[in-house]
Every structure is written in structure tokens, then in C-alpha cells.
């Protein structure tokens, strides 16, 4: 049978196989950690040359070695920031977006070495050190981003329990509808607690509340506590209504906790970009100020 396929066809199949298997490969492990190796060797090379190159009177961003590292670092920063534009243009070429992201991560990490060696450890309260600090913060936030991307999606999936977000909201609405009907026989004070619970918007949580996650005291839990406390339940109509409301409030609290946990994990997953992206832009500004000021006052 082999003779039926030309070598070319075989190669094409191998290519497709490769691509298929690649689709299950993390961007971190892309091409057998090719970019990790590139970045690792580059960092090692820079550290070695930093130690071996004799710069008079001492290492400094203004020596020939310092300028070389500075140029390399500035180029890298601009290229790394380019990912923000590149990812919006899904034009496949020899550089897949995955390969690009893999390079972004590892070359970005090597910038810790290149940028720091460029400073020659001469840091101070000036725009030059500002650029270095911003660079380090951007890299740190990126590191955080990678670590949460590696761990949190699993937690997110577990919390969903095969529900979509729409289903979670719908479930809450159904509970609310039942709760309103069930609460009709309740006395004024109890009814007010139920109203407060119904009016509570779980999505109105602020940034800190989102990071705190489920379990915090809210209107639903207060209503639940109020209606449960110190009551001996009977078979009377009023008591039956209260028991029903109590059961529904318990379901509501459970549903809210799932939504809150979802929001918490999402917040932990997404927060780094709110640091990484604006600080990258700030870094580009500081880098511009750094380069221009150095040559302005040359």
C-alpha cells in the first residue's frame, strides 16, 4: 500500500498529524520548549559576559556592553508589547500565535537578566530606574498570569458543575420566583427580609468583594438567619410557609455562592492583565523617556 502514496503525501499527513498533536500542546511546551531553551541560553550568555567583560570603571548602562544590552532589551520590550497587536490579527504565517506567545513568555523572562545587567545595578530615584521597575512589574504580573492560567481553569470547571453561566443566572431567577410566591403569607418583618434578599444583586460586588469570594454575609444569609432563629416549627400554615421560604433561601444562598466562586476565580484569572497591559504601556512611555533623556543630556 505504501507505494500508493507518494512521499509527498506521506509528508503532508505527517504534517497534519503534527499539527493535530500540537493543538493539545501548551504554549509553554511549544516545539519542545524551543523558546525556553533560547531564552535560557541567552540569559546564561549575558550573565557570563557580564562577569567576564572588563568594563572601566565599572558596569554601567553607558559602556559599550551596556549600550548593547540596552538596545537588545529595548528591542525585546517593543517586540513583546507587539503581542497585543499581533493577537488581534489572526493571520497565520510561519509564526503561529502559539509560537509567538511561547516566545513572548520566555523571552520576556530573559528580559529580567538583560534589563538588570543593563543597569549595572546602578539604581536610583530617576526615570531610568522607573523604566526598570515597570519592566520588572510587568514581568512579575506576567509570571502570575502564567501560574494562574496553569492552575485556575481546573477550579473554574469544577465549580461550574457542568452549568453554563446563563444556567446559573436562570437557576437563581427560578429560586427567586418561587421565593416570592412562597413568601406571600409571611408577616411584615419576615417579608421585608425576603424583599431585601430578592433585591440583592450578586453581580453588584466590587473588586474586593469579588476576590473575597463566597461565604460573606449578605441579605440572603441575613434573611435565612432571621427566619431560622429561635423558631419551633409546627404543622400550622404559617409555619409551613416559613419552612418553605427557609428552604428556598438556603437554595438561594447556595446558588449565590457558586456564582461568587465563579466570579472569584475569574477575578484571580483576569486581574493580572489589568496590571500587565497598562504597565506595559507605562513601560513603553518610561522607556521612551529613558532613551530620549539619555541622549538629550548626553
Amino acid at each position: 500500500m505504501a507505494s500508493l502514496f507518494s512521499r509527498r503525501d506521506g509528508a503532508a499527513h505527517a504534517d497534519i498529524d503534527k499539527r493535530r498533536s500540537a493543538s493539545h500542546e501548551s504554549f509553554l511546551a511549544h516545539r519542545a520548549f524551543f523558546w525556553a531553551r533560547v531564552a535560557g541560553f541567552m540569559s546564561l550568555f549575558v550573565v557570563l559576559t557580564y562577569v567576564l567583560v572588563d568594563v572601566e570603571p565599572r558596569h554601567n548602562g553607558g559602556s559599550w556592553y551596556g549600550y548593547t544590552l540596552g538596545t537588545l532589551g529595548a528591542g525585546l520590550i517593543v517586540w513583546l508589547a507587539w503581542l497585543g497587536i499581533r493577537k488581534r490579527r489572526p493571520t497565520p504565517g510561519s509564526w503561529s500565535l502559539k509560537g509567538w506567545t511561547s516566545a513572548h513568555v520566555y523571552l520576556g523572562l530573559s528580559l529580567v537578566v538583560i534589563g538588570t545587567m543593563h543597569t549595572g545595578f546602578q539604581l536610583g530615584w530617576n526615570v531610568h530606574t522607573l523604566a526598570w521597575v515597570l519592566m520588572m512589574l510587568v514581568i512579575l504580573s506576567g509570571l502570575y498570569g502564567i501560574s494562574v492560567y496553569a492552575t485556575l481553569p481546573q477550579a473554574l470547571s469544577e465549580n461550574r458543575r457542568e452549568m453554563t453561566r446563563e444556567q446559573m443566572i436562570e437557576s437563581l431567577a427560578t429560586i427567586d420566583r418561587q421565593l416570592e410566591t412562597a413568601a406571600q403569607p409571611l408577616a411584615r418583618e419576615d417579608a421585608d427580609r425576603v424583599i431585601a434578599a430578592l433585591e440583592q444583586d450578586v453581580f453588584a460586588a466590587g473588586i474586593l468583594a469579588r476576590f473575597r469570594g463566597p461565604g460573606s454575609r449578605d441579605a440572603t444569609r441575613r434573611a435565612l438567619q432571621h427566619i431560622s432563629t429561635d423558631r419551633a416549627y409546627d404543622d400550622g400554615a404559617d409555619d409551613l410557609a416559613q419552612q418553605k421560604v427557609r428552604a428556598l433561601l438556603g437554595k438561594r444562598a447556595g446558588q449565590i455562592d457558586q456564582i461568587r466562586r465563579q466570579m472569584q476565580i475569574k477575578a484571580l484569572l483576569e486581574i493580572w492583565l489589568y496590571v500587565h497591559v497598562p504597565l506595559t504601556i507605562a513601560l513603553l512611555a518610561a522607556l521612551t523617556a529613558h532613551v530620549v533623556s539619555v541622549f538629550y543630556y548626553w
Partner: protein
Amino acid sequence: MTFLIRTIDQTATGREIVREREVEGDRLAIGRATTNDVVVADLSIEQHHVVAALGERGMLSLEAAGDREFTFDGHRHRAVTIDPAKGGALTLGLYTLTFGREADGRTLVTVTQEEREFGNRDAVRGFDLASAIPGKRAAAWIGLLLILGAFLAVPIWSGLARSDKQPGANGPDRVAWDSSWSTGQLSLAHHSLENNCEACHVEPFVSVRDETCLACHRDIGDHADRNDLARARGPMGTGEALLWQVAEIFGKEGPEACTTCHTEHEGAGRMEPAAQQFCSNCHATMDTRLSDTALGNAHDFGTAHPELQAVVFAKVGSDKTRRVTLDGQAQEASGLRFPHAMHLSETNGVARMAGNLPAYGEALVCSDCHRRTADRNGFLPVEMESACEDCHSLVYDKVGSTFRTLRHGDVAQMRADLIAMDRAPRAPVTRGLRRPGEFKRGGRYFQDFGRPARNYIGIAQALSEDGVCGECHIPTTSGGEATVMPVFQRDHYFLNARFDHEAHEQEDCTSCHAADTSSKATDLLLPTLATCRECHMGAPAAAAEVPSTCAMCHSYHPPDFRRRKDGPLSPKPGRIAGLPAPARGRE
């Protein structure tokens, strides 16, 4: 009396369902409880909220059943009386009860209900952090504008817009907010310029120029001619050569510029002296590039340094100098006779004499004659009156108890003094005749009119080899008259280096200057390179007592006044005025 209750509900598709029922009686109970005539299933409504009662002339009074108010026609009431025929709307939560009167006299109550919304499919977006945090774009813009504004726009704008672009300008003519551009503190010498960047960084995008440095450092000596510097420099490393190529494109002045060696913004403190390697770059193999140089190659004091050379007066009586190599045999011609060994002996007549004089110890020591300069760096010129005359007396006469002394350093004066000395025996003008009384020899009015032949003999004796002058000076004749050779002594011997005696205070003089074994004044008592190397080795010599960089003895910028003949360390002009030979010798 009958109430007609018309309930209008809506199906999910929006179709209306109208149901009617009648309530007999003149009271209508309205509330959440199922026992009411009209049930309002809204949790915000009381179990028994309002009671409507028909009164006289068909008027309807609405009254709150509990302590909660109700809203009628947009106003809140506890009780209100209305005419149903005129209409009106009672709002209870999501429910609206409108009143009217049917043609048959029944009171119509139409109950409508708004649908409560539960859940919101748009709320899906609420899961994302984006719904609770300010956008990335806004934060990015704020950061971008703040940084570009504070660290770029303000300094550049204020630098370009100021009217008086003078270094050191204050107030509005100063560049604002440029301290954030400083890469580090200036050295202590430049501390006053710390907040005045434009003093050195005069033109935008132009590197600091030599002329800017030289505006203050006017008297700095040039190391060598610029072209010679360029020729002498050793081959550059690849990186350095590349850097200079790039730097040249950007308009740097080149490797000979001040800023190449004097880097600033390295932190407060003294500017670092140049490293040994900095000198050896050129001097290690300089003769291969600079064939006409008189300088020997050097790159390490301990291992590669030419023998020391001293500037000495070459010939007695002449102020012409030459450089001699300090090989232990070197000679100088000061024009003096002075055996150091004899004077430093502890047993001979000199020591005996010193012991008898109150101002000296058991024997002479170096410091009896050689006095320190005020900066303790070098030595004052040895002066005959203070250093020698305690022993080498120039007394020639005694009047009563007072001694008359010749003036040192002035041969003509000495001659005049001795001729005028009238106590030397003279041949009488007349023979056989003696003057009487107080006019006779030894009398108060005696006058010797004889020729002072003995005086002339005294002068000749003094200026002879064995005379009082000849003890230390070399007799000679000038213009037919006896005199002595003029004396020239150096106050410094090194042309291109400096030596600090204070730094060597803990050493004995004789460990470098072999004075205790020198019997001739022509011995040049300066140490050889080997003697220096007993303590001093090159900068990398960790085992040496004193690892020494080039800069310990040599200055890149020689202060050129030290080379002038009338430098500040020359002797006072009056001291040598009377010497017959050149007016400006050294003693």
C-alpha cells in the same frame, strides 16, 4: 351595594385575560392575605393594607388598615375619600387598582399587575472582572500621559522655552524637573552643579564638550599633543572600537575627550583615579607606535618601569641641567664641597664639636641642616647662616666683646670688609718716627696709614683651597680677581613624577639616601628603582607592602608651573644676588 372586581392578567405571549367577580357588601378589604377581597400578592404590601368603604352619596373612603400608608394618584395617604365616578388609581407595589362606577351603580375596581423581572440574561457579563474594574485602556492612557508629561515633556519644554539659556541660570530660566534624568549623584567636586544639569549638558542631543569642562578647568595641563595621543594609543578591543564608531556617528568627541576618563554621575564621593590599565593601554608598548618618544615603556611599577632618572646640574658653575639615570653611580655638580659621611659620623671631630654646642646632639643628624617645608612634603633650601655657620664661623675680628662676621654669599662685600679691617698689622708709612702720646700705636687717636697688604693676603687666603671659603667652595678667578664657583642645587629632581616625603616619614632618611657613606658632594644621593621596589610594586601586586598605581607618582595633567625655572620653590632672589655668575641659580 356591590363591588365589581375586574382582574386583568397577561399571558406569557402578551394576551390579556380578563376575569370579573362581584363582592357583596359596602367594605372591600385589600391586602396580601388570601382572606382579603382583593389579594395583592406583593411582599411589600401588608397582609391587611387598605380598607375601602362606601359611604354617603356613593363616596368611597380608603383607609390604611395597619400603620403603612398607601399611594393614591401619586400621593401618599393614610386615609382619603374619593368619588369613584371621577376615577382614581391606588398603587400597591406592582399592583394598580383603578376605581370607577358602572352604569348600574356598582363600584368597579380594575386590578392590573406589572410583571416582576427575575434574572437578567445580560448579567452574564457580570461574571467578568471587567464589570467591576476601570478599563485597561483608561489606566494605560493615564500612565502613558503622566510619564511622558512629567519625565519628558516638562523638562524638554522648559529647556527649550527658557529665555536665558545660561548655565547656572535660576528661576524660570532653569530647566524644570530634569533631576529625574540624573543617573546618579555627581562627585563631590561637582556637587554645586547637582541641580544644574544644563551647566554641562549645554546643547540638547550634543554630548558634553571639552570646551565646557575647560571653561572652569582653565589651567589644566595637556598630557601630550592630541595627535601624539591618538598615535600612542594601543589597539582597542573589538567592543570598544565598535562603541567609538557608533559614538562618532552620534557626535562624540572621541577617545581623547575629557569625559572618556572622567565619568560622572557615579555617586557622591571623590572622582575615582584612573586605573593602571588606563595608562598602560598607551605606555606598555608605546615605542612601537611613537618612535620619536624619549619615554621608556612602562605598564607596571613592579615589573615594567624604566630606571628612574633625575634632573641634575651637569657642570660646576653652570646652570645647565641634564638627566641622569639613578644607577647608584650618578653624579651631580653643585659646586660645593660637602662630605656627608664626615658630617654624620658619630665619632670624629665633627661629632665632638656638635656635642660641645648647645643646639646639637651628640652628633649631627640630617634634620640639623635639612628643614622641612611647611607642607612637610619637601625640604627648604639649606642656608649657610643657619645650617653651617655654628661650626664654620666667618668671624674675622673682635671689637671689645663683639665679633665681626663676614657676610656670606657676597664675595665683593667680603672683600670690602676685609680690606677695611684696620687691625691687621700694616707696614708704617714712615720708618723710625713714632707719634707721641695718644697718637702712638695703641693710643686712642692712632691711625695706620700703611698699605693694607696683610688684608689682601687675608682675602687671598680666605679664597684659597685651604681658606675659610675654600672649605666648602671651589676657588676660581673671575675677571682677574679671586672668587668661588657659584653653587646650584636642585629643589626637585624628577621631571615627570612627584615624590612626597611626608608619606615616607616613618622611614629613616638613610634607607633611601646613602648619605652616611658618601664622602663627596658630587654623589647624587637618590635611591634607585630597586630601592623603591623594596616596598612599592604594581597595582595588582597583592603581596607588596604598597601596591602602587601609576597615579601615585604621575599626574596625567601635569601642572606645568612646576617646570618653570622661576617656580615658587626657587630661593629668595636676594640670597643669590651677589654671586658673580647667573643671577638665577639655585642654592
